């Protein structure tokens, strides 16, 4: 019997396999359970995909704007706002029903929306469901949508002192509760699935002169004493840079206010292509930026051996491309004295009384000296005060620069406008990009005027 009994240890091997195997799993569970529950096919999170019947019964909570207006209820296959305009302006951020829009925002916060932790799992007391608040203001969004009219493009405003994105509207858009049958074929709704603020890049035109000017201010000690002449065009070897007018002799501030191509061509000769490229890099103009799980499109700036191409690249043409969000962040840095904040759109997430996420901006590295920033502010302020007209922005001290980006083909140029409010009470930076539109000033200023007025109203209330 002793010998038989001694062989019973063989059963211990099996016990060991069960115990060891399950311990292995428990370790894996501790490390990966949140990954599993948040996985692409998990029913517990809204992945901005087509929902199955079973998933529709689950409650992923509500997404609201900064004033707690409901944008969407994430149950029963998404119930959007009652207001068609709110539906149209928010869809590029919160996504549609069928996953055609790439809206990674909610997916990036699925863990917080689920309030998941390994101990209590996805449990939440009773039927308390998550409330996800964005920084966007539906009120301003609606104004922006109306101001854009039939234009295609994007408008965005963010608070450069806090990083909150107040407004970001893309057109053309569509109503998720009333999707046109010809959405994908009708030219008037081209690219309606794109969030252009994030996913697009534009030929910037003259708003890029802010970059060239900033580079010159950082690089050239004698910039103020330099004189630029404009005879309507500027000959560079066999090529010619054309200007919108004949500006004569100008100092740098006048040249910037006139948006004089000849002057900036001369400046590009002084700076050279590599110096320009260095500052484009330093200012983060072409870099993709990432916030709230969203990564923007990259811009483009090419160095070139040909002087005329370098000149055009300094003017915002040639191969230049900017992403609206990245450029807005750059302008925000100027407004904030040379060191800016990344924007953010996720304000806070709460499940019952439990706040699982609080948004805040990330402080970027300093990109220019406070003095350069200060002088850029003055120059841009002068553009509005002396040229575009302060009457467009009642009650706001706006600093800005327009641009007209030639895109070739049969299309009219991109009309661009970017700037900020130099007022501690309304620290707003903005960008307006309108495609196939015409001159920046005539198209964009009225849009910015309405949107900023609405922002002011929201901030005052």
């Amino acid at each position, binding site marked *: *019997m*002793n*010998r*038989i*009994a*001694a*062989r*019973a*240890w*063989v*059963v*211990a091997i*099996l*016990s060991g*396999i*069960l*115990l060891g*195997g*399950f311990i*292995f*799993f*428990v370790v*894996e*569970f501790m490390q*990966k*359970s*949140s990954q*599993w*529950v948040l*996985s*692409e*096919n*998990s*029913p*517990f999170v809204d992945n901005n995909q087509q929902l199955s019947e*079973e998933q529709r*019964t*689950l409650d992923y909570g509500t997404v609201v704007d900064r004033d707690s207006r409901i944008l969407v209820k994430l149950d029963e296959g998404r119930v959007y706002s009652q207001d068609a305009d709110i539906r149209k302006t928010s869809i590029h951020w919160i996504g549609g029903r069928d996953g055609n829009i790439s809206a990674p925002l909610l997916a990036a916060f699925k863990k917080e929306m689920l309030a*998941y*932790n*390994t*101990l*209590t*799992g*996805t*449990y939440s*007391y*009773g039927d308390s469901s998550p409330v996800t608040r964005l920084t966007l203001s539906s009120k301003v969004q609606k104004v922006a949508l109306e101001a854009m009219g039939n234009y295609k493009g994007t408008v965005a405003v963010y608070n450069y002192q806090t990083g909150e994105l107040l407004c970001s509207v893309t057109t053309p858009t569509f109503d998720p509760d009333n999707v046109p049958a010809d959405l994908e074929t009708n030219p008037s709704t081209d690219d309606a699935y794109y969030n252009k603020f994030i996913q697009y890049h534009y030929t910037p035109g003259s708003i890029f002169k802010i970059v060239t000017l900033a580079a010159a201010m950082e690089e050239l000690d004698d910039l103020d004493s330099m004189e630029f002449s404009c005879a309507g065009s500027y000959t560079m070897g066999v090529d010619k840079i054309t200007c919108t007018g004949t500006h004569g002799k100008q100092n740098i501030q006048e040249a910037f206010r006139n948006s004089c191509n000849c002057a900036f061509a001369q400046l590009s000769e002084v700076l050279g292509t590599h110096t320009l490229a260095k500052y484009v890099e330093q200012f983060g103009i072409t870099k993709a930026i990432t916030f709230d799980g969203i990564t923007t499109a990259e811009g483009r700036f090419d160095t070139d051996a040909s002087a005329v191409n370098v000149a055009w690249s300094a003017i915002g043409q040639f191969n230049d491309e900017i992403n609206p969000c990245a450029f807005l962040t750059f302008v925000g840095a100027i407004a904030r004295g040379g060191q800016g904040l990344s924007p953010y759109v996720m304000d806070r997430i709460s499940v019952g009384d439990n706040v699982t996420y609080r948004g805040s901006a990330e402080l970027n590295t300093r990109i220019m000296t406070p003095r350069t920033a200060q002088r850029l502010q003055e120059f841009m302020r002068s553009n509005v005060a002396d040229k575009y007209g302060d009457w467009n922005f009642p009650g706001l001290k706006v600093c800005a620069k327009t641009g007209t980006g030639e895109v070739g083909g049969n299309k009219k140029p991109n009309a661009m406008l970017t700037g900020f409010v130099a007022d501690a009470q309304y620290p707003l930076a903005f960008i307006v990009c309108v495609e196939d539109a015409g001159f920046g000033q005539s198209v964009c200023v009225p849009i910015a005027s309405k949107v900023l007025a609405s922002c002011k109203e929201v901030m005052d209330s």
Partner: protein
Amino acid sequence: MGKIEAMATFTNVYITILRWMLPVLVAILLVRCIRPLLFFRREPEIWAWLCLPGDRKIPVTHWESVIGRHPKSDIVLNVSTISRTHAVLTRYDDGSWTISDADSASGIQVNGIKKKIAAITQEDTFTLGGVTMHIKPISRRQEKRLAQLRTKVSTFFGSFFNVILLTAIQFFCALGFLLTAEAGEFTSILMGFGGIIIAEWILLFFYITIRRTAFEVETLAFFLCTMGMSAIAAVCPGEAIKQVFAMGLGIGLFLTVGWSLRDLNRAKIIRYIAAVAGIGMLVATFMFGTEIKGARNWIFIGSFSFQPSELSKVCFVLVGASALERIVTKRNLFLFIAYSAMLVGCLALMNDFGTALIFFGAFLVIAFMRSGSVGTVALAIAALVFAGVLALKVAPHALDRFDNWRHIWEDPDGNGWQQTSGLVAMASGGLLGLGPGQGWLGNTRVFSRDADIVIATLGEEWGLIMVIFMILAVITLAVFSIRCASVGRSSFFTIGSCAAASILLLQAILNALGTVDVLPFTGVTFPFLSNGGSSMICTWGLLAFIKAADTRQNASFAVRISKQGGDEDE
């Protein structure tokens, strides 16, 4: 506050408390059950004295004892003329003894006459290698005294308290489901949980009337049944009554097998019937069976369906167990290997990969226990043959599973769907679970969420901690079998109990570790947890073998309270 709101608030508060309270209650219950099973003092029973020249007396502590020079013999006689394994001393149910020669060099002489095997009484002397001795069975007075000295394993009160605690757990589970279930499901839930409560109390009172006090093994089984019922309540409440009925049949089988095992001679006869039944059921399934999910392992008789391969497991354990005298004298395992090969072959033909694996695992355990190191070669050859048969026959079926193994997340909507859904659900439950009826998996159409991946359903609603408790319950049964081995009466019981424990372990290993993708997924049932009548009945049948090896004083109904001379104790 309206009545409906008040009810909703009560439900929410109740579930919140239950999530924390239940693991604590179960932990207390498990500690109370596991401690006596794993840490009982192994006190040998003394059946006789072997009287040697010079008034030397050696206690005989098993029904089967090897006498020899080998240091691991049960009775070591270090005399050079005695073979390493010389003879086997065997006691029978009626208190009679035999001595049999284990192919020793000098043989045995009983009363001076050379014998292969002989019945002996205390008047007879026998001689091994020139040493003459006789056996003196202990007197009834000594026996009574010894029984008093041996520690009583558990008190009536202790078992009673455990069952009260278990009943409380069952009540709290059932209430949780009643609060959240649809009105039409009330009866099923009440009958399901109520049936288990009634069964455990009847069994306990039956034990008390036959003066058996140990109820830990049964308590663990009933705990697992309760959790299984929770999975049914979450997935398919309508099947609760069917499962309770199966549990009743299972307990019936448990008592029948246990009663059969009380008498070793009776058990040895039943073995032959079991051998025929075991293979017969598989052949019948192969011929008349119905294929479900690739495996042809179901028999339908009208609306009644069952898996005969489950019951074959009980037969297999009976066939595999063997008395020591036979093991020592007939070393070859040929018949058993052939029998096992037939069973596994049948299962391979039926495409039932999981069950084949369980039989094969149990075969290895039995073969090792019977042969020791001697049989290693035979074992390896047999293993090779089985593996070959399996590979050839079920290759496409089996390879699929291996393909998927550790890659389930690469195809979560296709081949990995069942397991990734399970893991997502378990993750959702966290350590504490979401509460009864609150899980997602139960309401889905994920296949076999109440059987093959039942731990995922339970993990989501009751938490990972409870799943760990369920695994520990199975491991406890196995470790208990190992501990009982050294104080076993007969190798028949020891091998039977270890084989039964191995089958329970193998099922838990393949089910649990398969579900969580630590091992390839084979789709077998988890003992007591999985919804399925055949599995439930079989598992209770296997539990009888564990009870039959429990020689603690007054512990097991499947073990006679020792009385000399065949006197019945009741």
